[in-house]
Structure formats: structure tokens, C-alpha cells
């Protein structure tokens, strides 16, 4: 109240508070955006920070002392290394297979008119709109009712991951294909290339960025998946399953180390992409 009165009394020089308030009002949305990003980054900062913590007991909940030891001895916790390796193996294999299958579906949907196109779209859309717990448990009932022909383990995780990645690959590649210049392919055909050569020499190189983006997304989804994996893993431990198991006892800082390392690799790839896009945009602006 007093500030308002003071402002009225001395119009030429508004008080600091008033000026601050005006600044905030003008930039309120920007301030909010920064705060919101702070909220999104807070847990990430905490994960990284506690990877350097030297907890007094076995609980890594409260900050105690700084140390590099967790990073140097990241695999000193029993099972953490094999779980990470298992996650990377599943993610690599599942991503390769799902990307190939998904790209083919996307090509068929965008490039061809055929009977059952609507149904295909629906079947691709369904896994993305089904809760993970439902997908995971239905797949589990399939394996449970196979009368021992399918044992839960590495390959059931692989099957599950390919299944839920395919749809995301289709959506990513489809978006790129729709805005695609078909004249280049027509030119290749006019110059005597057959369909297969055109696909190899023209379509595939032009699609490469979208395929790469889809594969990275698939890899990220696979390495992070817990719910479907947990239901169908049997005795196999991926990194998220390892974390779940150890969370019931006490999470050692080494878990933060591995999570931070995965995050840093991903963020470096992401930042490289941002810089690349920024430069590309600048180059286009310079050209015109």
C-alpha cells in the first residue's frame, strides 16, 4: 500500500519496488518460462549433484560431502554394470529392428494407396494410446499361456521393446515423408533409374535425418522403459529394473552416476543438434 501512495506522490521517479513490478509485469511470461524450466531442471540437477555425494550412512537422501569416488568406482555396486550392459544390448537390438520395420510401414502408409490403410493407421496408433501396464500385462499373459515354449528373459524384453517402439518410428518418419519433395524421385525415374535404385540413391539419403531421429527416440524409449520390461523380464535385470530393486533397500550414489552419464550423453547429442539447426537457420538467412 505504502509503495502505491509513494508512487503517486513522486511520479517522475517511481520506487524500486514499482519499477521492479513493472519490469516483472512486462516480462512476466519470460520470467515464468525461466521458472518453469527451473522446475523441469531441478530433479536433474539433484540427480547429478547427489552423484557427487558421500553419504554418511547407506541412505543418499541428504547432502553430506563432495567426492569423485562414486564416478571413479561407478561399477563397485554389485549388478549395476551387468544391468547397464543388458539395457544397452536390448536398446541397440530393439532399435535396429523396430526402426527397419517402422520405416517400411511409414513408406507404405504415405506412398501407397491400398485396402486397409485406415486399419493400419489405427493399429499403429493403438499402442501409443494404451497404458503401459495394460500392454505389459497382456504380453505377459501371452507368454504365460505359451506352456513353457517362451521363457521370460532377454528375448521377451526384446519382443516387447520392438513392439512399443515401432509406432513411434512410424509417426516420426511419416511426418517427414509427408512434407517430402517427390520431384527428385520422379527425376531419378525419368533418368532411367528403377524403383529400387531410386529408393536406394534418392529416397533413403533424403530420409536419413528422420530415420536417425526415430532411431534415437526409440533407443531413448527402450533404455528408459520400466513398466513393460519389469512385467516381462523374468530373471533378467535391465538398468531401470536394477534401480527398482535397489530402491527398496537404499539407492547408492552410483545409480546417480549412471543416470547422469546417460543424461550427459543424450544432452550433448541434443545440444549438438540445436547448434546444428541454429547454424543451418543462420546460413539460410545469410543466403537470402
Amino acid at each position, binding site marked *: 500500500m505504502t509503495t502505491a501512495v509513494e508512487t503517486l506522490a513522486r511520479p517522475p521517479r517511481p520506487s524500486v519496488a514499482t519499477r521492479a513490478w513493472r519490469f516483472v509485469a512486462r516480462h512476466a511470461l519470460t520470467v515464468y518460462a525461466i521458472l518453469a524450466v527451473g522446475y523441469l531442471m531441478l530433479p536433474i540437477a539433484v540427480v547429478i549433484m547427489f552423484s557427487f555425494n558421500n553419504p554418511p550412512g547407506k541412505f543418499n537422501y541428504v547432502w553430506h560431502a563432495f567426492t569423485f569416488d562414486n564416478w571413479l568406482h561407478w561399477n563397485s555396486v554389485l549388478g549395476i554394470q551387468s544391468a547397464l550392459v543388458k539395457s544397452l544390448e536390448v536398446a541397440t537390438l530393439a532399435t535396429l529392428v523396430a526402426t527397419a*520395420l517402422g520405416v*517400411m510401414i511409414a513408406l507404405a502408409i504415405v506412398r501407397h494407396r491400398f485396402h486397409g490403410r485406415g486399419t493400419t493407421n489405427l493399429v499403429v496408433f493403438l499402442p501409443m494410446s494404451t*497404458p503401459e501396464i495394460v500392454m505389459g500385462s497382456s504380453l505377459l*499373459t501371452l507368454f*504365460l*499361456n505359451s506352456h513353457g515354449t517362451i521363457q521370460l528373459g532377454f528375448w521377451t524384453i526384446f519382443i516387447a521393446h520392438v513392439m512399443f517402439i515401432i509406432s513411434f518410428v512410424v509417426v516420426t518418419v511419416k511426418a517427414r515423408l509427408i512434407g517430402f519433395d517427390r520431384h527428385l524421385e520422379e527425376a531419378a525415374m525419368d533418368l532411367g533409374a528403377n524403383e529400387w535404385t531410386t529408393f536406394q540413391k534418392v529416397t533413403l539419403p533424403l530420409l536419413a535425418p528422420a530415420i536417425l531421429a526415430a532411431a534415437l527416440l526409440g533407443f531413448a524409449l527402450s533404455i528408459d522403459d520400466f513398466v513393460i520390461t519389469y512385467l516381462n523380464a523374468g530373471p533378467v535385470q535391465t538398468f531401470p529394473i536394477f534401480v*527398482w530393486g535397489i530402491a527398496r533397500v537404499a539407492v547408492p550414489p552410483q545409480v546417480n552416476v549412471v543416470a547422469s552419464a546417460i543424461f550427459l550423453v543424450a544432452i550433448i547429442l*541434443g545440444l549438438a543438434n540445436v547448434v546444428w539447426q541454429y547454424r543451418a537457420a543462420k546460413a539460410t538467412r545469410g543466403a537470402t
Partner: protein
Amino acid sequence: MGEFLHRHKGLTPYLLLAPGMLWLALFFLVPMGFLGYQSLQSGLFPHFQFTWEFSNFSTALSDYHTQLIRSFVYAGIATVACLVLAYPLAYWIAFRAGPWRNLFLLFIVAPFFVTYLVRTLAWLNILADQGPVVRILRDIHVLGPNGRLLATTFAVVAGITYNFFPFMALPLYVSLEQIDPRLLEAAKDLYSSPTKAFLRVTVPLSMPGIVAGTLLTFIPAAGDFINAALLGTPNQSMIGNVIQAKFLESLDYPTAASLSFILMGTILIMLLIYAKVVGSEKLTG
């Protein structure tokens, strides 16, 4: 290969579709059938028999309707919270961010790069009883001297909100970014106030993003059990917790399968009502 495709042009799309669709059929559609098959069985582990046991559904509903309703309430609150929190951010990125746009989009997806379980566990650190947040809230008497945030409904809903925030923010951004700024200028030229222009132009044009974001947040949130397991107590337990425990701990597959079916059925019904309300074109894009 080229020769063959050239001679049978009509076959190409089916050959392209076959492997992927076969995978989805075998490992997504067929399992749904097995889920139904399992849900109608009776008996005790490991001797289940298929007996058209429809009473599994009524028993499951009467035993676990609390968790089922709780799941939808939590998911609903989290979805609304995500929408309210994400809309201004997506708006700022779409219209005001300028050269910072891509960096801020990277900030939005950054939580995805930290393992789901680990970023949820980070909230244990943040909301810990000895942590700074609880201390401040106790000092300003928002919380009582022994009040806590962990193991409360608040912690679980906040965890869900945080974890699904990017699913809301990204579709919102995509739809806002497509709005032609000239439409807003036109509204201004026609003497519309900023508030009115926002409500009459921006919001309706961003509806596809709101619809997509709501679905992408609500559906996985309703089936989530990690937040309830890590940040809550059995009093916050959701339907996902029950299904997971029935499958892996008490080995009561028929009940688990019928609960899964009920969850999916309820979501489908909600989806159909939602489609009626907002228009089905907006739902499928």
C-alpha cells in the same frame, strides 16, 4: 528384387507392411485376446482353468474400485496441473523465444533423458523430511512442525505432474507454433483486447494441442504405479500398483488380467465421451 517389385506393383505396400504389422498383431493385438482369456480363468497358481469366470470382474471391481477411482482422480488432477503449467511456457516458446526456441525445447525434453525411476527418486531428495523444502514450509507454518510432503497424496500427484509434463508441453507448443501471428494482429486491429484475442483466437486454434496433450498425459498417468510406489504409501496406491503386485507377487493372474481389462475399458469409454465432446476429427488429428 527390383524386377519383381516392378512386375507386381500392387504388392509393394503389403510387402512393406507385412513384417511390422505382423509384429504388432502377434505382440500387441493377440496378447489382448490372451488378457481376456486369462481374465476369465479360475483356480489357483499354477493351475488356472478357463471357465468363463465373469465373476472375476465383479469381484475385482468391488475389491479395488477405490484404487481405480483414485487412479483417474490423480491422473485428472495431474493432467489439469500439466495444462495450466505448460500452456504459458509453450506459448512463450512459440511466440516470444526467438533464437532461444530450440534450447528451450531441449529443456522441455531433458527430463526424458534421465531414467524415469531415477528422476522420480530425485523428488525423494527434494521433498525429504530433512530437506530444504519441508524446512521452509515448516518455518512459514504451511506445514505443521511434524508435517511432511513425502508419503502424501500431494507428493504422488506432483510426481505424476512432473513426469508427464513434457507430454503436455510438446503438443501444445506444436499447435501454438502453427498459429499465424497475423490472425492475432487482425484481432488487435479489430479492437479486441489482448485477453479477448487470447480467448477467442489463440485458445481455439491451439485446441488440437490441448486435446493431444490431455490424452498423452491422462492415459499413461492413469496406468502409472511408479510415483505411487516411490513417493506415496499404500494409501495412495493406484490401479497399476494392484495389477503389478497381482501379477508378480501374489501370482493371481485372473484378477490382474481383469483389472487390466477394466482399466483399458474405462479409458476407452472416457476416450469415446471425450471424442463426442471435442469432435472426433480433433482426436485423431
